[in-house]
């Protein structure tokens, strides 16, 4: 790492509180030669909304995919309600009360709105496990009305819906469950201002109810300061900042990100300088 006027990169170590619902310690994950996560420490209190910031490729989505059981970390430990947590599958994580809205939404275009809402949580008849479509339609209607999402017809394929409606359904899928931890990977992407506000309202309402804890990846600093209790900033596969939103500002967050950019640029310069001096040494011989 380059020395100089740019401040040294900070890595926030593990911290915890007695009422942590989720704690993540020293998580690392590599994909071949690429290090996605180096050393991530994170904790989430009951009823808290944690905003996760970071540049593209910083490792936010990878962290979410490890938390929700879709991928497994190479090293590090996780604790759910104080107990070791090592989900083997998405179903495992769901059984532990963790629901996820993925960046790509994980919606099935060919299936109807209500089948998407109930995917992997289907209601079936007894004793023959045939799909209880009427019951699912009814419950889906109630759930969507409660959340305040306006979907005119719930028996059409989701391929027919607009980007915002699709996002809303992906979010509704997690809210319409018994989850006590919800992971949202860029819930405001592809949304218009009105639909985005609706999702933020929904998060605010869930926070008020205090039953669920939320980890939310966002890009917009203003949204983070507005909607979250605390913010964690991922840089280069580690947490570079972890503060209550009340104690930070758009300026501070921006400065950290800009410093990261300058560090990266200086490192590239240093490498280039080293390469050119090596080349000139070789030609001198």
């Amino acid at each position, binding site marked *: 790492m380059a020395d100089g006027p740019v401040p040294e990169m900070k890595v926030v170590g593990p911290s915890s509180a007695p009422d942590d619902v989720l704690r993540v310690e020293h998580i690392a994950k590599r994909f071949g030669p690429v290090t996605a996560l180096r050393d991530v420490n994170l904790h989430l209190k009951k009823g808290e909304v944690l905003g996760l910031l970071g540049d593209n490729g910083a490792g936010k989505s990878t962290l979410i995919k490890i938390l929700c059981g879709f991928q497994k970390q190479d090293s590090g430990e996780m604790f759910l309600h104080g107990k070791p947590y090592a989900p083997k599958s*998405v179903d495992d994580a769901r059984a532990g009360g963790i629901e996820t809205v993925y960046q790509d939404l994980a919606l*099935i*275009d*060919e299936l109807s709105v209500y*089948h998407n809402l109930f995917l*992997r949580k289907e209601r079936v008849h007894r004793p023959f496990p045939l799909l209880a479509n009427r019951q699912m339609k009814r419950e889906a209607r109630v759930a969507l009305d409660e959340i305040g999402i306006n979907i005119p017809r719930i028996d059409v394929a989701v391929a027919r819906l607009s980007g915002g409606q699709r996002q809303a359904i992906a979010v509704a899928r997690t809210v319409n469950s018994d989850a006590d931890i919800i992971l949202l990977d860029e819930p405001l992407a592809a949304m218009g201002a009105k639909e985005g506000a609706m999702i933020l309202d929904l998060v605010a309402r869930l926070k008020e109810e205090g039953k669920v804890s939320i980890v939310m990846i966002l890009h917009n600093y203003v949204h983070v300061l507005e909607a979250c209790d605390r913010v964690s900033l991922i840089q280069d596969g580690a947490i570079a900042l972890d503060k209550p939103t009340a104690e930070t500002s758009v300026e501070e967050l921006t400065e950290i990100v800009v410093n990261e950019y300058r560090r990266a640029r200086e490192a590239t310069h240093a490498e280039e300088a080293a390469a050119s001096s090596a080349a000139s040494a070789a030609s001198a011989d």
Partner: protein
Amino acid sequence: MPAGGRELLNRLIALREGSIIVVTIIVAIYFSANTSTFFTGENFKTLLPYFAPLAILGAGEVFVMILGEIDLSIGAMYMFAPIVFYKFQTAGLGLLPSVILALLICMAVGAINGAFVAVVGVSSFVATLGMLFSFEGLSLILSHGTPVATPGAQIHQTTVMVHHIVNGHNIVLAEKVNHVGTFAKVFGAGTYSELIWAVVIVLILQVVLTFTRWGLYTVAIGSNKLGAAEAGVKVRLVTIRNFVLCSSTAGLVGLLEAIRSQTIQPDPSGPNELLLLAIAGAVIGGTLLAGGSGTIVGAFIGALFLGILDDGLILQGVNANYKLFYTGLAIIVAMTANVFVARARRGHSGSG
């Protein structure tokens, strides 16, 4: 067109199978009008052995095709199952246990297909093409390339004395009567046996596809594999299960046909043609090769269409050399009609 007719046509078009139903009816009407023998019960019976096997093969194949995969090895299972059935039977096992064992082996092959595709990550076209050749080759090796009589399918002829009263005189005449065993009657040799198998399998699998989690996950994987996995669908398990289903239906058809025809023919050319016709039937029945959408009933009607076409062309006295050519053209025309009707359907269901 009268209002009632237009209403009916609109309803048909709204169905995924609608276009192939319309095309099949048109073809049937054409042959009924042009030949005196098409629309008869006797002809229906000759039609059955052509389309019933295709319908069963198509039913299994649709489950794999909805995933966005393809199973070419059904031709090999069709050829292989009767040969292992024969081996088990001649080794001293009973007829029914031999059938069950043969089907279990087909299921195991299906599991290998599924594992190659879902776990190893080989493209299904390549993996099942390899399995097609391997198991057709294995069939030739095991059978030494020699046809044999299918166990349990022999027809016994007995002579019975029948009393007739002619002009008040009581006379006795000897008549020959064919007997087929119950086993053979159930497994393909009975006139309607294959049709009953086809209808029952198609209905059960259509219910599985439309009204169970298995079917829902099959569509989900074919439509958005990553999304289905992220939602928690066990993609590998469902994929393997569908390949197992497809292989076992193909093995069953092989057994039914061997018992119906009373011989086990170790010749890959028939199975290879059948496998492509089954896929053609599924596609013209409304199943997408790209996955995400499909219908078992549609594949059944697609098979019926191919059966009617084959049968009608023969009745019309079409030169044998032209038959394949006409069949190919008809498939292209039916597919094109399908595309147009599907477009109309999208417009139709979009408005209401």
